[in-house]
C-alpha cells in the first residue's frame, strides 16, 4: 500500500513537469506577446515591461525560473491585472469554485445513485425506460443550454430564485442544479450498469436463496460492488465538473476560478491561464490518486502493486 502510494506520487512529478513544460513552451511559441493587444506602446516602455516580467532573459533562464516558482504556485503578477498576483487570484477564486463543484458532485451522487438502483431493480420495465430516457436527455442537454432555460423559467418567469450572483443560499441553487444535471444522468447510467452486472452474480442468488429480504440484498450486498463504476468515474467527473464550472460561473456571474480562467483566456492573460491550468492539473491528479486508493479499499479483489 505505502509502496503503491509512493510509486504513484513519483509518477505525479514527471507528469506535472511535462504539463508545465508543454504550457511554458506553447506560450513562448505563440505568435505575439501579451502586450500586443494594447494600442502601440513606445519601444522604451515595451522594453521596460519586458524587463519587469523577465521576458528579456535567455529562454533557458526563463524556463528555470518558471519551474522553480511554479512549485510555490508563484506564477508572478497577472498580465492584465498587474497589481494582483496569480497566486492571490487562485487562492481567492478556488474556494468559491470548490464549493460550487462540491455541491454539484454531491447532488449528482445523491440523485443519480438512487435513480440508477431503481432502474436496475426494475430492468426493462416502464420506470427503467423512463429513468434511462431522462438520463440520456440529461447527458445531451449541455449546461449552457440548461442554465439559461432554468433562469428563464425559475427566476425570470416565476421569480423563485435569483438569476445570478453568489450571495446567500438561494443564489446557490440554480448554479448547482445546472452544473449537476448532466452528472446526475451519468451517475444514474453507471449505477444501473454496475448494479445489473452484480445482481446477476452467484453470491446474490445465494443471498436471496437464504431468504434475505430484497432490500438487504440490494442495499447491503449488491450496492457495494455495484457502485464501483461510479467510484472510478469520480476522477473524470471532477475534471468534467471543473470544465462545466467555466460556463456555469459565466452564466451566473459566480466569482470563482473558472470565471477568472475564461476572462484570462479571452484577454490572453498568459500567466493567469497557465497558473490556473497547472493548479487544476495538479489538483485533479491528486484527486485521482485518492479515488484509486478508495477503489482498492472498497473492492477487496483489487491488489495495489
Amino acid at each position, binding site marked *: 500500500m505505502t509502496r503503491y502510494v509512493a510509486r504513484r506520487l513519483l509518477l505525479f512529478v*514527471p*507528469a506535472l513537469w*511535462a*504539463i508545465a513544460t508543454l*504550457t511554458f513552451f*506553447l*506560450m513562448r*511559441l*505563440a*505568435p505575439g506577446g501579451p502586450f500586443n493587444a494594447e494600442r502601440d506602446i513606445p519601444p522604451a516602455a515595451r522594453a521596460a515591461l519586458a524587463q519587469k516580467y523577465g521576458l528579456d532573459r535567455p529562454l533557458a533562464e526563463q524556463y528555470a525560473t518558471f519551474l522553480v516558482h511554479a512549485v510555490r504556485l508563484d506564477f508572478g503578477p497577472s498580465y492584465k491585472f498587474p497589481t494582483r498576483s496569480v497566486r492571490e487570484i487562485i487562492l481567492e477564486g478556488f474556494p468559491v469554485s470548490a464549493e460550487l463543484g462540491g455541491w454539484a458532485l454531491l447532488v449528482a451522487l445523491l440523485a443519480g445513485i438512487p435513480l440508477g438502483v431503481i432502474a436496475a431493480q426494475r430492468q426493462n420495465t416502464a420506470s427503467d425506460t423512463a429513468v434511462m430516457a431522462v438520463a*440520456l*436527455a440529461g*447527458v*445531451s*442537454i*449541455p449546461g*449552457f*443550454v440548461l*442554465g*439559461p*432555460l432554468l*433562469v*428563464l423559467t425559475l427566476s*425570470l418567469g416565476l421569480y423563485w430564485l435569483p438569476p445570478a450572483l453568489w450571495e446567500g443560499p438561494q443564489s446557490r441553487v440554480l448554479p448547482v442544479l445546472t452544473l449537476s444535471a448532466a452528472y446526475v444522468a451519468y451517475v444514474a447510467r453507471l449505477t444501473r450498469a454496475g448494479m445489473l452486472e452484480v445482481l446477476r452474480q452467484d453470491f446474490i442468488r445465494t443471498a436471496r436463496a437464504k431468504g434475505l429480504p430484497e432490500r438487504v440484498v440490494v442495499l447491503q450486498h449488491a450496492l457495494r460492488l455495484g457502485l464501483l463504476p461510479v467510484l472510478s468515474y469520480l476522477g473524470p467527473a471532477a*475534471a*468534467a465538473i*471543473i*470544465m462545466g464550472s*467555466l*460556463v456555469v460561473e*459565466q*452564466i451566473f456571474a459566480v466569482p470563482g476560478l473558472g470565471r477568472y*480562467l*475564461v476572462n*484570462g*483566456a*479571452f484577454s*490572453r492573460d*498568459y500567466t493567469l*491561464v497557465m497558473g490556473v*491550468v497547472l493548479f*487544476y*492539473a495538479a489538483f*485533479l*491528479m491528486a484527486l*485521482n490518486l485518492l479515488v484509486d486508493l478508495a477503489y482498492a479499499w472498497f473492492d477487496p479483489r483489487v491488489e495495489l502493486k
Partner: protein
Amino acid sequence: MSAATVSTALAAAGPPRSLWSDARRRLARNRAAVASAWLLALVVLVCFAAPRLPGLADPAAQDLRLGAELPTIAHPLGTDELGRDLLARVLYGGRISLLVGLVGTLVSLLVGVGWGAVAGYAGGKLDELMMRVVDVLYALPNLFLVILLMVFFSRSLLMLFVALGLVQWLTMARIVRGQVLTLKHRTFVEAARALGASDRSIVLRHIVPNTLGPVVVYATLTVPAVILQEAFLSFLGLGVQPPDASWGTLIADGARVMALFPWLVVFPGLALSLTLLAFNFMGDGLRDALDPQDGQQRR
C-alpha cells in the same frame, strides 16, 4: 465431424453471416437508433444544403425595422434583434457545428488509429514510450489543452479543428492499441507474415481493418463530444469567431438577450440538444449491435 454433417449444419444456419450483416440486422431492430439515424441524416442534409434551399432567407440579411420578432409564417423560428431570420441562422450555424464535429472526429481518427496501431504492433520500448505520452496528456482535462491552444494561437476555424481533434485521439489510441495487441498474434497475421508481407501492409491491410468495429462505435460517440466541446468554447467566446456562427455562438448571443427574446436561446439550444441526443442514441445502438459478446449471449 463428417463433411455431410458440416454441410447440413451450414444449411441450417442459413446463408453465411458476417459481423457487419449481423450488426445491420440487430441495428435495424433498435427503433430509437434507426429513428436517430434518420433524424441525423435529415439534419445533415438540410444544414449542408442550406445555401441552396428555396425560400430560406439570407442569414446575414438585416431588417432593423422588424427587429426581434416571435415566429411567423415568413420567419418560422422568429428573428433576432437585428431582424435576421433565425431559421436560416440555425441552419447555417449547424453547418459549422457539424463540420467541426466531423472534421475534429476525422483528425482524432487518423491520429488515434495511427498512434495506437503503431504502438501496439511495435510493442516493447516504443509502445511504452508512446503510451506514456498518452497517459500524461490524459492527466490534463482535454479542454484545458484546447483552451491553451486557443489562447496562445490565432482563433481560426482551422485551429479549432486541429485543437479539438488533437485532444480527442487519446481514447481512440488506447482502444486501437488494445485491439492490435490481441490481433497481432492471430494466425491470419502469421500467415500474412509467412507469405512475406511487409510490416506496413500487415498493419494497414490485415490489422487495422479488423479493429473497425470498436473504432466505428467510438467515432460515432466522438462526433457529439466534439460538437459539444465546440459549442462550449464558442459559448465562452473562445471557439468559432464572428462573422462565422455556430450553434454555440447562437446560444451565447441568445443567452445575452434571453430576458427579452427567449426564443433566441431556446431554438438553437433545441437544435444542439436534439442533435447530440440523436448521436448518442445512434452510438449506443451501434455499440449494442457490434458488441460480439452480446451476440454470443444470444446464440
